[in-house]
């Protein structure tokens, strides 16, 4: 059974804070014409929300990344039956990328996403923004912007549901965790 961890209202408050942090970063670092790229599926929803809040700063449409072809556990779990094509609307060479995901946990999804991004081109920089950053990293990867860093039982899964109403749920062990 999944139990509600965070309501829509609370998530939108986190997104407001992330958007403020992001625009400060963008201004400080002089990041020019950033391209926001969401990781399927939850990351795309978060990217959409952030892009809407940063409307003035964003000139290009959203990119979408499905990292299924880059997973390191393919031989164990096989093809993900719901792979969506990745879509990057512009040339990545020399671009500043804001990579967005819903939950940062082991870091393996981000590793896969970085590998995939570099198969599309050579970005100038990549910044990572996540709604939830939880403990349990297995790779040297950290978020530049995170909405919340909650203490979660290592056994629990945290799942973002959406896209119309964004809600975070805690799942018992065995519940399917899309994020990582």
């Amino acid at each position: 059974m999944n139990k509600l961890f965070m309501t829509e209202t609370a998530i939108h408050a986190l997104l407001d804070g992330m958007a403020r942090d992001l625009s400060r970063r963008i201004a400080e670092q002089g990041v020019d014409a950033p391209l926001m790229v969401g990781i399927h599926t939850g990351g795309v929803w978060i990217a959409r929300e952030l892009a809407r809040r940063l409307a003035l700063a964003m000139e290009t449409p959203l990119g979408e990344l499905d990292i299924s072809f880059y997973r390191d556990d393919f031989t164990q779990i096989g093809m993900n039956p719901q792979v969506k094509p990745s879509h990057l609307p512009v040339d990545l060479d020399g671009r500043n990328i804001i990579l967005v995901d819903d939950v940062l946990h082991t870091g393996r999804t981000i590793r896969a996403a970085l590998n995939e991004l570099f198969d599309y081109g050579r970005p100038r920089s990549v910044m990572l923004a996540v709604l939830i950053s939880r403990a349990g990293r297995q790779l040297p990867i950290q978020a530049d912007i995170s909405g919340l860093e909650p203490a979660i039982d290592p056994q629990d899964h945290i799942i973002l549901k959406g896209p119309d109403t964004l809600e975070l749920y805690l799942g018992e062990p065995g519940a399917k965790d899309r994020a990582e």
Partner: protein
Amino acid sequence: MEAFGNTRLQLRDNGRLRHFLTLDGIGRELLTEILDNAESFTGVSERTVKKVPLLRGKVIANLFFENSTRTRTTFELAAKRLSADVLNLNIDASATSKGESLLDTLRNLEAMHCDMFVVRHASSGAAHFIARHAAPHVSVINAGDGRHAHPTQAMLDMFTIRRHKGDFSQLRVAIVGDILHSRVARSQILALNILRAGELRIIAPRTLIPAEARNLGVHVYHDMDKGLNGVDVIIMLRLQRERMRGARLPSEHEFFQRYGLTEQRLRLARPDAIVMHPGPINRGVELDSHVADGAQSVILQQVGFGIAVRMAVMSMALGPGPAP
């Protein structure tokens, strides 16, 4: 027709693909999954780096006992885009001519840690035979066996139709030409039935229609003009000149007169009908050059889609998925 033993051979206990030998026994859901996966692989060809790391470290051997440059090339490209290592073995020219048995050749390739065999053979059932004798970790893909099956070709045809027409249930599809000798036609008919295509017609002279045709759930036409009337998809088959024995046809010229696709005949189909052909085309025998190169022809798209479909099949067979 598909009498090569247990078709469950190609599925794992969890229902996932292990080999891909025939469309017989493959459910609609699995077939649709192949098409969906192929859809996501089409994007890979358009990127700067036309490669994904999915099958890195896997070894795929193309075992071609019968020549086919294009099919072998698209399988090779599909494997390479998945980052697998590829061995191309032209068997006729090597081992068997020195007297090595087929099973000895297989054992040697297994000892080299091959993970997949892509098999093309002039004998029906060859891929099944190899699959039955392959080591447990090895997957076999049928790239055409005798008159029996050519499942990846049929799947790329289904992919092309779905890209252009979407839903199969309302479609009228005509397959024209040498049905008798065509493993492509057999696999297409199975696939179209599994996908529940609205109406399936075969158009050919009596001498080029197999005796069991009436049991295939198809409408048989000997008059091409009648058969093409109102169809959405026209699949032309290659005249298998090298497989013809005896006088099944008076002449290629006469064949073109009666069953060649001309611009004039194409107008009998729906105005948005697409024209397909598995290649290589015999211009002026199966179809007119103007039709082959015309706006309704999707023949070259089929080649490109073939790579994506083969990537899907290879990655599904080599990614076993969770235990049942």
